[in-house]
């Protein structure tokens, strides 16, 4: 059940854009699709939505081939766009009707979503009068008003201010709570870590890492230690053969190549009566893993 991609490939003019990728979403949740620009994320999304034909492989939703007819999906493309000179209400009704809703149900749903996304006052305005952030929220509404089962969000937070980012985050949490399958592509690794249980990292069309995010992180050794103290500890760090990455007001981030060295440092600080308010051995962040996997 759910969404399944098996050995999917796509080439443009003889150049592989996506090479033999496979992943599946078997239960509601957010799946993270990561990669640098041109890695093949958008091509993958376009193939799974049926906008682009795949060269090989299989894409199924609940066992059936994916196309517009048998999957009720919502899509927020990376290329943002709205009809600039059309009333917001009219264009949202247009897209809702194309997705099979009747006008009355569409209006009801639009009003509900407008309330959630705080854009009610713009419904009877043309898009050209809205800020980019609000236009983006309107486009998100286009993806959600018809209550889709599968939601594909390509860079949903790019261009949003912190307030609107929080608003959209809450919407995504709500979607998962409502049992939706969400595929999200984003450059902000912190956001992916916040939402995604499973991820796939693409580099030049090839899968370089995929699986459960927690398991992936657990498979990596600790690489930093965070220490908040009441005095300068540069000499102790040096004595333990460690390197300071950053220090602000005696709050240290120290690079770690061996977890035992962190234990030695803690011992040394205690023995020398240094006031330690925080000592945290940290696993690599998703950002670290991403840079390691796709960095040149």
């Amino acid at each position: 059940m759910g969404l399944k991609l098996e050995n999917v490939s796509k080439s443009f003019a003889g150049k592989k854009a996506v090479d033999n990728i496979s992943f599946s979403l078997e239960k509601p949740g957010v799946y993270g699709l990561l990669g640098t620009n041109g890695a093949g994320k958008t091509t993958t999304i376009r193939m799974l939505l049926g906008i682009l034909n795949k060269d090989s492989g299989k894409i199924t939703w609940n066992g059936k081939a994916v196309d517009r007819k048998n999957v009720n999906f919502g899509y927020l493309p990376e290329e943002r766009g709205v009809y600039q000179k059309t009333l917001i209400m009219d264009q949202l009704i247009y897209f809702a009707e194309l997705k099979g809703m009747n006008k009355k149900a569409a209006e009801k749903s639009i009003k509900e979503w407008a309330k959630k996304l705080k854009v009610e006052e713009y419904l009877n305005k043309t898009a050209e009068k809205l800020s980019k952030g609000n236009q983006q929220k309107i486009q998100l509404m286009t993806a959600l008003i018809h209550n889709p089962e599968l939601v594909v969000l390509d860079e949903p937070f790019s261009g949003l201010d912190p307030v609107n980012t929080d608003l959209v985050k809450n919407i995504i949490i709500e979607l998962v709570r409502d049992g939706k399958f969400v595929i999200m592509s984003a450059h902000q690794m912190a956001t992916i870590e916040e939402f995604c249980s499973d991820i796939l990292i693409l580099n030049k069309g090839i899968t370089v890492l995929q699986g459960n995010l927690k398991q992936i992180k657990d498979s990596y050794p600790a690489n930093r230690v965070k220490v908040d103290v009441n005095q300068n500890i540069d000499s102790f760090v040096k004595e333990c053969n460690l390197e300071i990455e950053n220090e602000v007001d005696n709050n240290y981030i120290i690079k770690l190549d061996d977890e035992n060295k962190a234990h030695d440092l803690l011992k040394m600080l205690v023995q020398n009566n240094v006031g330690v308010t925080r000592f945290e051995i940290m696993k690599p962040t998703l950002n670290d893993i991403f840079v390691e996997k796709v960095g040149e």
Partner: protein
Amino acid sequence: MKNLFTVMKFTMREMVRKKSFIISTIIIIALIIGGFSLPKILSAINEEKGNKKILISDESNVFEGTLESLKTMDLPYDITINKTSYDDIKNKIENKEIETAFIIEKENEQVKIKYVVENIRWENEVPQDLFGAMSSIYSNLQISKLGITPEQLQMITPNFETSVEQTQKDEVEFQNVFVMMAVSFSLSMAIILFTVQVAQSITTEKTSKIMETLVTSTSPRTIVLGKTIGIGLIGLMQVILFITTAIICANVFLDSELINMLLNVSNITPGFIIITLVYFVLGYFAYALLYALTGSLVTKPEDIQSANTPVSMIAMIGFYLGYFSISIDPTSSVAAFAGMFPISSAFCMPARIMMGLATPQDIAISIVLLIVMVAIIAKIAISVYSNAILNYGSKMSLKDALRLCKEKKK
């Protein structure tokens, strides 16, 4: 099918809400009303203004007083006849007492007539009717001096009764030519102008990046056909509105004799109207789909003009071939070819049918050829559109788009 109506409805609503559409419709209706009412307005202005005031000065008494008979003739002038010098005439014209004047002089037995005007404008041209009447009066005066009686004069003046007899009945119905040319021209212009709107509409969606959302909501075929039909229906409604306005204006402002002279209503049968509509629809589809193809290749609004040029050239060749071949000689073999050739048949076949120049067989072949062309263009246009609309890089060439279509088929 439901989505096709949704796209059509949205396209039509967007189109009629455009300021440019509303303004151009109002302007064209105003021009139609203005054009038809102009003769009446001009004649009303002339009536209000009264007859033109003309002075005739015969200081040398060349006409020996016979010019007074001009006043009894049915001429649209207030004529004053006296002996006034050139300077006085100049003053009278400047003071607007008179508008123009004739000065008659005789030098060495040669009669000279000067026509004095304030400046040379079209309305100040020599009034040929008055000049003719003066020539006639002068001839009569000279003939009477020769001692010829009016009866003798009548005998020597040619008074032939002429008439024209045809040996063969006309095969061509020329009575409706003027109206048919006007209708044919309007339909051609409507086809050319509205098909360009299809390209603009597609390019706008592409450049505003709404396309990706749209193609995940419905199929590219539905989008292309929905847009094409929607814009075509608006175009047809606009043409019907203009023709209706023209018919109403003709009835209100033109003399019924003139209308009857220009238009033989008996030739405008329901069948003819249906065939004209069929040609309009097919011609529109052929060019609209070609413009849909070029519109989908463009990524920036500024490129649309250059992308549309090849299609505009084909449309212009079709229009000139169709329209001018029937304007110059509707019975020529060029006109017959234009009626069959799919790129020009929509522009001239309705006129040929109305003139009685096309047999039912000609019409059937012409329509079949046009349908085949529309089907081929539709297949290519929809295929290119599906492949080219998500290209946001540089403008895609038709060759690249066709290559993509081939790759997709494999």
